[in-house]
């Protein structure tokens, strides 16, 4: 059980919550996630990445977008309410070391889990360039936090309402064309965005890490629901990941699997970002 100690609405559909979870705060590292349930008996388990943690306060921060039944119910909870099931930190932490120049690309709420990773890479002595993208100005989050870390910050929106009117792949391509090219790219966001980031960097042979958020039940390496095809091998996102080499991930299969239950899910929320990127692609 974890108490909500702070709730903030970042945009129409995006919320930030601080949860009282001292043991998770103490153990977590960049790249890890939690699983939560809104109802202990009948709730579903959803994974959410940890955006931040404060060991002294004993809190962790999650940032989520309302895309389905559980995130909708979560958004209706308030400060002082308890989340009945919270478990973590799960997943293998990001391998942080000095590479040189790192481009961090965050799409939509993918910026939230990207923040602690960018911060850690910066602290390890890397030159950190950050690209933030969203559908519109309203959906741009954590701009100030990212600005503090970034050696170079590029913001783009799809409708041009803020920053450059572009998809994140555009500035990413430009950075890859610079000499010297980046040593590494890490991209976190909707699957379709990560797929195209990987496609963008592939010709430049820049190692590109992506953080996958698949369907999970237990999150501890028991159910196998989170499996993805990485370089022809079956990998489990919850224990082998969540971060993988984006050039090796079979995104199309992963996206099909993410939609396994779409037809039977009763809620009518659509994932705006997904649908928007799909439109652009088509």
């Amino acid at each position, binding site marked *: 059980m974890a108490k909500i100690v702070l709730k903030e609405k970042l945009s129409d559909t995006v919320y930030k919550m601080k949860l009282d979870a001292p043991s998770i705060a103490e*153990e977590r590292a960049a790249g890890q996630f939690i699983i939560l349930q809104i109802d202990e008996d*009948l709730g*579903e388990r959803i994974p959410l990445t940890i955006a931040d943690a404060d060991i002294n306060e004993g809190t962790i921060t999650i940032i989520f977008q309302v895309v389905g039944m559980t995130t909708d119910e979560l958004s209706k909870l308030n400060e002082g309410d308890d989340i009945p099931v919270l478990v973590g930190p799960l997943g293998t932490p990001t391998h942080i070391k000095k590479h040189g120049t790192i481009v961090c690309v965050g799409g939509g709420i993918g910026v939230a889990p990207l923040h602690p990773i960018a911060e850690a890479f910066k602290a390890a002595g890397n030159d950190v360039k950050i690209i933030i993208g969203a559908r519109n100005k309203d959906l741009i989050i954590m701009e100030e936090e990212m600005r503090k870390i970034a050696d170079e910050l590029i913001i783009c929106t799809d409708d041009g309402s803020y920053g450059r009117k572009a998809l994140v792949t555009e500035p990413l391509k430009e950075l890859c064309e610079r000499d010297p090219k980046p040593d590494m790219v890490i991209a976190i966001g909707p699957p379709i965005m990560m797929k195209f980031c990987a496609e963008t960097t592939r010709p430049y042979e820049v190692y590109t890490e992506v953080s996958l958020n698949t369907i999970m*039940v237990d999150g501890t390496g028991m159910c196998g629901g989170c499996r993805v095809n990485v370089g022809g091998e079956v990998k489990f996102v919850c224990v082998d990941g969540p971060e993988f080499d984006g050039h090796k991930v079979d995104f199309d299969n992963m996206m099909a699997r993410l939609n396994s239950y779409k037809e039977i899910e009763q809620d009518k929320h659509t994932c705006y970002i997904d649908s928007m990127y799909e439109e652009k692609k088509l």
Partner: protein
Amino acid sequence: MSYQSPDILSANAKKILNDYIHNVENLKAKDRLKIPVQDMPAQDPIVRGHNLEEVAIGYTMEEARVEALRCLECVKQTCIDGCPVKIDIPGFIKHIAYGEFQNAVDVIKEASLLPSICGRVCPQETQCQENCKVGIALKDVDKSVAIGRLERFVADWEREQGNVKIPHVKPETGKKVAIIGSGPAGLVVAADVRREGHSVTIFEAFHKLGGVMRYGIPEFRLPNDIVDEEIDTLVKMGVEIKKNYVVGRTRKLNDLIEKDGFDAVFIGTGAGLPMFMGIEGENLVGVFSANEYLTRANLMRAFDKKNADTPIYPSKIVAVLGGGNVAMDAARMALRLGAEKVYVIYRRTEVEMPARKEEVAHAKEEGIEFNFLTNAKKILGNEKGKVNAMECLRYELGEPDSSGRRRPVVIEGSEFIIDVDTVIVAIGNGSNPLIKQTTPNLETNKWGNIIVDENQKSSMDRVFAGGDIVLGAATVILAMGEGRKAAAAINDMLAKEIAG
């Protein structure tokens, strides 16, 4: 085995008991051998295919006493040799024959703490009942004394009386023991260690307790209420429980000892990563591990389609790959969730199937179709990446392999296609990787199973392990057997420390 209604079975038993009751003392072995084995009363197969209630209803008092009369009270008690926890089987059965049910339970509980669970899920036909002289005399293991059914009967009887005895706990010793995982191994260690007066904390990764007995074995085979009651007993004994706590992630195993002051740790984290066939199409939408399918249905209550948030895949035609208990559970669960047709695909024959015989019989009665000497070659999908068929191969039995079982050999050119929309893979599990990943000084074998000595002690000081994390995929009773040994070793170690 053909289905007979509980009423008929009960009436038959009453009649037999009347015939013998006045002459129990003088029954000779040949008289006992003439008494017919008492079938397990079960819900009607057609009705139960649409509900989640327990299939096996359990013996009536008369059925239990008649079945108990079949025991020959052998001098050489080979049945006990077959029991991983060495229950005094003839001892408790004799009490049942005389209607002394409480005494029977007391005898069982000297050796086994969870008889209502073991009576339901133990593979008796390859353990105690395989060695039963009645079955041997009648040349049919199915005609052995139904030891498991009797065990279940008295355990249920005690619970229905409403006064399950809480085991006595010795005065507090001040020693602390951590148990990782609340499955069968962990629960047994918790009880045995707590009885000696040590403080016990169980760490469970899930939001509900019981491990595989909760997420894996379905309600229709092992009702949750029974698992709850066993856990309730532990709580009444003073065992502390921490749910949603993943040792290895929420806290490192080393920290439990070094920072939190635990004097001993038992690792009972169970089976881990599900195995897949490694065939084409296995990542298509509609392919599940049995672990995932059963966890959704059981733990996450997806069978309650109206109320549960966790969805379950809407299946019409299901193929289950494998021949163990998990395969049976998955097949029968799929039926109950609304599948119109369920196939079990197994590459050997029925004789080699590792599943409990009763489960196979029940599955057949319910209309599950078994395809022996068959295996999946590849899974086919439509343009949306969803399963729509499976290509299979026929096999024949060849020469015996190292396990002594005849090896299945592919019949070349025997490919055929069946229409399915769901494939459930139930071919076993690897080991859970979490503790190993985060505890570098813990020795494991090449499959990731923890290496232990004859007392279940691992390579690490004060750290013991048992159950599937040591054995690979095994059974509830074998896990309990290992738990017993580990608890004895932990109690020994702590007693020596206290004595100084």
